[in-house]
C-alpha cells in the first residue's frame, strides 16, 4: 500500500475544488465520497440529472457541471459510493465500498465533509411524514420526487426559500411557509448590512430577494413569527400543524418539512481530536483553522461547510486555498499572487455571511425544547429527562449519554448532540465550549461485525 500525497474526504464543491487543483499540479490525490457521484449537497446528481430537472434546480445548480468536468479531467483518483468510516490522526483513512473495507494512508488530509441540517426538536418532529427540508430537496435533486398534497415548510434559512421556489418552478402550488425567524432578527442583522454591500454581497442579497419575490408573486401564504409549533397526526394518514403566529393556526397537511439552517458536520473532525470553537453568530461549533485552513492538527486541512457554513462558492475557493497550502508543504511551487487572489475572492463571497447568519438565526427557544419533546430520536430520550439529570448533577453531554442513553444509538449523537450541549450550557450556566460535546468514536459510518472480523490478521 503506497501513501497518497493527500486524501480528500467529500466531493462537494470544497472537495472538488481541492482535489482538482492538487491533481492538476501533480500531487497524488484520492477523493472519496459516499454518494454515487461528485457534487455534494448543492450539485447532487449533477452528472446524471435529466435536463428538465436541472431547469427546475436553477443556475447555481447547473454551475456545478463545469467544476465537475474539471475534476474529471484533473487526474485525481475518484472513489464514489465509498465511505470513510474511520480516520486516524496519522493520516490513515479506513474506507468501505462494495468490495469491503480497506485502508489508505496519506501525508495530508483535506476534510470537506460539508454541513448537516440543524436538528429541530419540536413536538411531533418524529412523526412519519415530517422530514427536513434538505431531505425533501434531496428527493427532488436525486430522484425527481415532489411531494403531493398540501405541504408546509416550517423554519428559517435560505434553503427554505430556495426549496419553496424550486417547488413552484416544478409546478407545486399547494404550499405554505411558516417562518420561525423572530422579528428582532431583522434589527440584529441591520448593523451587518454595510459589509453585505461589499464584494459579492449584493449578488447574494439579490438572489434572496428574488426568491422572496417569486413566492410573493405566486401568492404563496407566508406566516411569520411562528411560535409554539406542534405537529400531530390527523388520524387520517395526514398531519396537523399548530402554531401561534398572528393568531392561532391549525393547518391540515400531507407533509411537513422543517429547517433551521445548516451547521458544520464536525463528527469526523471531532473523532480526530481537532480543536473546536463555538460561533455565537452561526450558533454552531466549527473547527479552529489558520489562514491556510489547517486545523489544530498539522496535516489536517478543512475546507467548505465543514469548517464553517459559507455556501458553495466559498467552499470551492476554500478547497483551492487548502490545496495550495498542501501543495506548498509537499514542496510544490505555488504562485503567491494566486493564493492572495483566491483568499480575496473568498472574502468577497463571505461579505453577506454575517448578515445572513443574523437574519436566519434560530429562535432561542427552539434550541432548548420543552420537556415532552424527544431530543434523541434513536433512544427516545426526552428533554425533560435530560433537564432532570442535569439538575441532579450530571456534568455534561457524556454523563447524560451514560445515564440516559441519549447519543448511544445508531446515529451516534449526530442528531441529539446539539440539544444536549445547549441544555447543558443553559442549565449549568456555562458557555457552549465549557458544556462540551459527545466524544465521537469510530466507526463514523455503519460497518458490520462480519466486515470488521474479516480484517483480523490471525485466529484470535
Amino acid at each position: 500500500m503506497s501513501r497518497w500525497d493527500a486524501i480528500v474526504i467529500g466531493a462537494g464543491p470544497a472537495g472538488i475544488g481541492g482535489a482538482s487543483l492538487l491533481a492538476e499540479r501533480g500531487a497524488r490525490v484520492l477523493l472519496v465520497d459516499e454518494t454515487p457521484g461528485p457534487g455534494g449537497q448543492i450539485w447532487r446528481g449533477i452528472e446524471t440529472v435529466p435536463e428538465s430537472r436541472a431547469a427546475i434546480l436553477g443556475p447555481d445548480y447547473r454551475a456545478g457541471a463545469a467544476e465537475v468536468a474539471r475534476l474529471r479531467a484533473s487526474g485525481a483518483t475518484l472513489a464514489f459510493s465509498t465511505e470513510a468510516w474511520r480516520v486516524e490522526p496519522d493520516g490513515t483513512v479506513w474506507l468501505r465500498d462494495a468490495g469491503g473495507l480497506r485502508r489508505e494512508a496519506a501525508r495530508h488530509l483535506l476534510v470537506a465533509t460539508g454541513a448537516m441540517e440543524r436538528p429541530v426538536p419540536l413536538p411531533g418532529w418524529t412523526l412519519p411524514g415530517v422530514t427536513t427540508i434538505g431531505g425533501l430537496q434531496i428527493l427532488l435533486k436525486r430522484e425527481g420526487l415532489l411531494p403531493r398534497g398540501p405541504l408546509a415548510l416550517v423554519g428559517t434559512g435560505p434553503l427554505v426559500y430556495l426549496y419553496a421556489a424550486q417547488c413552484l418552478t416544478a409546478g407545486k402550488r399547494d404550499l405554505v411557509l411558516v417562518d420561525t425567524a423572530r422579528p428582532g432578527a431583522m434589527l440584529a442583522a441591520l448593523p451587518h448590512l454595510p459589509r453585505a454591500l461589499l464584494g459579492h454581497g449584493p449578488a447574494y442579497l439579490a438572489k434572496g430577494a428574488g426568491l422572496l419575490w417569486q413566492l410573493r408573486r405566486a401568492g404563496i401564504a407566508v406566516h411569520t413569527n411562528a411560535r409554539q409549533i406542534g405537529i400531530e397526526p390527523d388520524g387520517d394518514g395526514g398531519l396537523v400543524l399548530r402554531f401561534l403566529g398572528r393568531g392561532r393556526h391549525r393547518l391540515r397537511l400531507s407533509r411537513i418539512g422543517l429547517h433551521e439552517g445548516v451547521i458544520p458536520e464536525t463528527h469526523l473532525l471531532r473523532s480526530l481530536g481537532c480543536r473546536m470553537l463555538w460561533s455565537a453568530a452561526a450558533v454552531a461549533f466549527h473547527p479552529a483553522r489558520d489562514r491556510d485552513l489547517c486545523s489544530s492538527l498539522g496535516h489536517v486541512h478543512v475546507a467548505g461547510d465543514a469548517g464553517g457554513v459559507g455556501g458553495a462558492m466559498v467552499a470551492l475557493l476554500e478547497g483551492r486555498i487548502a490545496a495550495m497550502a498542501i501543495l506548498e508543504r509537499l514542496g510544490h511551487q505555488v504562485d503567491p499572487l494566486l493564493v492572495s487572489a483566491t483568499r480575496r475572492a473568498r472574502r468577497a463571497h463571505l461579505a453577506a455571511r454575517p448578515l445572513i447568519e443574523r437574519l436566519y438565526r434560530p429562535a432561542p427557544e427552539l434550541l432548548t425544547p420543552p420537556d415532552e419533546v424527544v431530543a434523541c430520536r434513536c433512544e427516545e430520550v426526552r428533554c425533560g429527562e435530560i433537564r432532570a439529570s442535569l439538575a441532579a448533577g450530571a456534568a455534561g453531554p457524556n454523563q447524560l449519554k451514560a445515564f440516559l442513553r441519549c447519543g448511544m444509538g445508531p446515529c451516534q449523537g449526530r442528531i441529539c448532540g446539539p440539544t444536549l450541549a445547549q441544555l447543558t450550557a443553559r442549565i449549568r450556566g456555562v458557555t457552549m465550549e465549557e458544556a462540551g460535546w459527545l466524544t465521537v468514536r469510530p466507526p463514523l459510518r455503519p460497518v458490520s461485525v462480519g466486515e470488521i472480523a474479516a480484517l483480523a490478521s490471525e485466529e484470535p
Partner: protein
Amino acid sequence: MPFIRLDPPTPEAGPELFFEGRPLRFRPGETVAGALMAAGVTAFRETPVSGAARGPWCLMGACFDCLVSIDGQDNQRACMVAARAGMKVRRQIGARRDAAGAGK
C-alpha cells in the same frame, strides 16, 4: 400521501420491488426510500424502544430513521440503498432479527 415523479411522471412498465409482499414499481435511479415514498409509504419502521412509527427524516444517511429490512438483511438505511428489481423490502419492526440466528 405519495410523491409525484417529475421525469417520467409514472412508469408504466419497468422494474418492481416488493414491499411487504406487494409489488411496487420504481424508476431506475431511485433509492429504496424514494421508491417507497413515491408509492405513499410514510411509516418505514417501528422503533425498538417504544414501538413508535417512524419514517425518513434526513434522507442523507445520518439519522437512521428510515431503517427497513432488505432481502433478509435488517436495519438497512432505505435512503442510502439503490432500488433494484426483485428486492424484498419489509418494515423494520423493533430490533434486528437477522443477527440473532438460531437463538432468537
